[in-house]
């Protein structure tokens, strides 16, 4: 089994806010991330697929294809956007790094399944070089 990873970057703004909580509780739990004017990051998205190399091409998947899938399914919707205000999956879900990783998985998985062959293995999202979250499709 070979694991192949493609990296992409996007820049977006967000804030953390649970509308069921008071302002005080939001500030207490989320700190500066609860500033309702938002703030932003340069995110790095790492998409890992697992599979066997095709005996003819030697590819697990064509990296250009994977690049196009990431751009079409994720970057087109998220890059230079406000995640809370402009991205439907975060209308009622807080765009934490964990939830961003899960949402990226959900956006990518149908295209990977449709292509057949390699399987989506892991999605990792770096919010900064020191902070990341990953999702491996676990329920």
């Amino acid at each position, binding site marked *: 089994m070979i694991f192949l990873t493609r990296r992409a970057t996007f820049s977006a703004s967000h804030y*953390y806010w*649970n509308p*069921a*909580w008071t302002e005080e509780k939001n500030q207490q*739990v*989320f*700190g500066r991330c609860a500033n309702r004017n938002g703030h932003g990051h340069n995110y790095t998205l790492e998409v890992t697929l697992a599979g066997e190399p095709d005996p003819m091409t030697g590819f697990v998947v064509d990296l250009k294809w994977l690049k196009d899938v990431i751009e079409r399914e994720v970057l087109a919707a998220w890059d230079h956007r406000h995640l809370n205000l402009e991205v439907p999956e975060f209308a009622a*879900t*807080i*765009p*934490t*790094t*964990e*939830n961003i*990783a*899960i949402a990226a998985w959900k956006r990518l998985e149908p295209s990977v399944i449709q292509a057949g062959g390699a399987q989506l293995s892991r999605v*990792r999202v770096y919010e900064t*070089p*020191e*902070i*990341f*979250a*990953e*999702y*491996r499709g*676990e*329920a």
Partner: protein
Amino acid sequence: MIAHFGRRYTISASHRLHTDALSAEANRATYGKCNNPHDHGHNYVVEVLVAGAVDPETGMVINMAALDDVVRARIVERFDHANLNLDSLFANRVPTTENLSSAVFALLKDALSAGKLERVRVEETENNFFECVE
């Protein structure tokens, strides 16, 4: 849903790889430059990976501020700008980065406010790293 939250911390520390179980010559042969009696140091990166269910109220596996508090109290304050050989954890263990990663894992394992410690990675330099899992 089970997701993973990762956080990287930097500690600068010195050490010397040496064991009294070997002769001076054997220590030099085994550890090379790392056996220098005057020690040497690294900027270590400690990467902590926590697995757990995403809390629907917070969207988090673990609150980063709480994780930072634990790692700073147990790891950074203990090892940053310190000589690893003088730490009690390395009184009878050579402070290789293998042993440092397992020491960090043991110090954090039961201290997290949420989730489960899945993996500790310690990067000694940009070109080598060591990982400890349960």
